[in-house]
């Protein structure tokens, strides 16, 4: 054995090492894949199949649940609600956040960061109670306005933090040149700076969209029959006494699939949105 090792030392070690890596890969992929697959399987089984024991791994799949989710539970409306709120929150976050992030990056306005940190540290329920009272007073419960404003609490700080690092990479000389050519500040921002950070804008837009789409707590209290978003809609599948597991499986698949695809494209930057630049100092 020892001689064998010595003769082929590096090759054997390499083989041993790569085998270990592949065992590790399987171990890491198994938990996410299993839950993901189980979610889809739950959606493809009938109600009876879902509560039978032992659990069925092989069965003839049905698309009935997906049809029922749209036909009975009006799921298309909830998907649209989520799409509208997430788009509004993302659009507004970009509109307010882009100039702010640019200015913070250019003029080193660190104090604004404290405000963002406070926003992130405060329990969401602490915002929810005052907002619930205010929106109730203004008759704005169950409106897109109420949902969008509260989702901004999460998405705006996120967009600002993400964009700061992108703006920092824009060379100042380019803007100076534009200014000398007679561009106003707004023109040079729009024509010179923003196109240079378009990857960053796309990334922050996607991340902001994901977090608004996933938001549950604010929508749980502030939405209603008209504006219910998908996380609340799927949660309501269990709140009527009997639990529709098959419907939950189908609905969960429909909710998770789009954000998973989005997340795949921004997986490198998604951490930065949450870390608030903590890694830089």
């Amino acid at each position, binding site marked *: 054995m020892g001689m064998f090792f010595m003769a082929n030392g590096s090759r054997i070690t390499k083989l041993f090492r790569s085998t270990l890596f592949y065992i*590790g*890969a399987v171990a*890491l*992929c198994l*938990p996410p894949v299993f*839950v*993901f697959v*189980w*979610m889809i399987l739950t959606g493809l089984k009938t109600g009876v199949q879902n509560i*039978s024991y*032992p*659990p069925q791994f092989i069965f003839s799949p049905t698309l009935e649940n997906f049809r029922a989710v749209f036909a009975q539970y009006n799921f298309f409306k909830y998907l649209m609600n989520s799409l509208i709120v997430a788009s509004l929150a993302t659009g507004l976050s970009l509109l*307010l956040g882009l*100039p*702010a992030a640019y*200015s913070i990056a250019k*003029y080193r*306005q660190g104090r*604004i960061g404290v*405000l963002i940190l406070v*926003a992130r*540290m405060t*329990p969401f*329920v*602490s*915002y929810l*109670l*005052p907002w*619930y*009272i*205010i929106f*109730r007073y203004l008759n704005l419960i169950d409106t897109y306005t109420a949902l969008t404003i509260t989702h*901004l609490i999460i998405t*705006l700080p996120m967009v600002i933090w993400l964009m700061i690092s992108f703006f920092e990479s824009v060379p100042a000389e380019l803007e100076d040149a534009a200014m*000398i050519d007679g561009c*106003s*500040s*707004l023109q040079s921002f729009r024509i010179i700076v923003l196109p240079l950070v378009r990857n960053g804008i796309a990334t922050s837009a996607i991340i902001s969209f994901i977090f608004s789409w*996933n938001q*549950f*707590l604010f929508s749980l*209290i502030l939405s209603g029959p008209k504006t219910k978003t998908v*996380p609340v809609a*799927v*949660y309501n599948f*269990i709140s009527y006494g009997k639990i529709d*597991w098959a419907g*939950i*499986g189908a609905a*969960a698949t429909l*909710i*998770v699939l789009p*954000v*998973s695809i989005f*997340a795949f494209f921004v*997986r490198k930057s998604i951490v930065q949105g*949450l*870390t608030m630049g*903590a*890694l830089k100092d």
Partner: protein
Amino acid sequence: MRTVPAETTRMKTAASKISSFVDRRQALVYPAPAVIGLFLIVVIPIGYNLYLAFTKWTIGLGDPRFIGIDNFIELFRDDRVLNGLKVMIYFSGLSLTLELVLGLLIALYFHREFKGSEIVQAIYIFPFAATPVAVALIWRIMLNPEIGVLNYLLTSIGLPGSLWISSAATVVPALVMVDVWKWTPMITLIVLAGLKSLPNDPYEAARIDGANTLQIFWYITLPLIRPVLIAALMLRSLDNLKEFDIIYTITQGGPGVASETLYLYSYKVAFGFFKAGYGSALMVVVFLIVLVFNVVMNRMRLSAQDI
């Protein structure tokens, strides 16, 4: 610098006045909308929340009545506050520890590039972006002690099943398992970014001195990565101490109050019993816990950086 164009000699239009104001006061004008926005949607509600903490008020009945610190005295007489604190410490202590240790180990694993590591990483981080309520519901199905797939798998390989979320003794570890599944990828990604930015020199020196892999990890990597680890812990704690979606979806704090964290209790007081004043006082306490934890951690991070 700039040549004066002919228009400026004419009456300045409002538009050009604004434009030149923006030019001169860029540092003020650009961040203003976001700062005002954050002030309105963040600072004012926090202030209102603080005010309510000193009042007695049932939402929908009359007006808030100022009662001083009575709500905070009430905290000490409320059994569910102590229970909530215990559950919070149990849940967060266990999940944060596991996420940090596993996150570090998995980051070390990904740090060695290998064929296909990109794909493995993409699959591994899936839970991180998945809608919490949706995946938590799927976990709830899988954790069912009678018909759930987890107990089926355990018993089919000869292990005993668990009562998971149906028993007060196992509910917190079961919820921790879901939290670890969902959020360890976040720690991994942060630590991985930290590992990639470590200097190369200490490693070369160690290799020349003949240090083995374990020694290199213990004496070089770990001290160097410590500030990043603490930063990751802080960021994760911001959400973990206020975990809502997973617990609310899977157990709503049950069975009984066995998984009711202080944060979840504050939600129930405010939106279940509509006691706005007492609920606000509880939220202030949760905020203070998060704040103190992060201030202490930040001290540790800064001193770890100095070494």
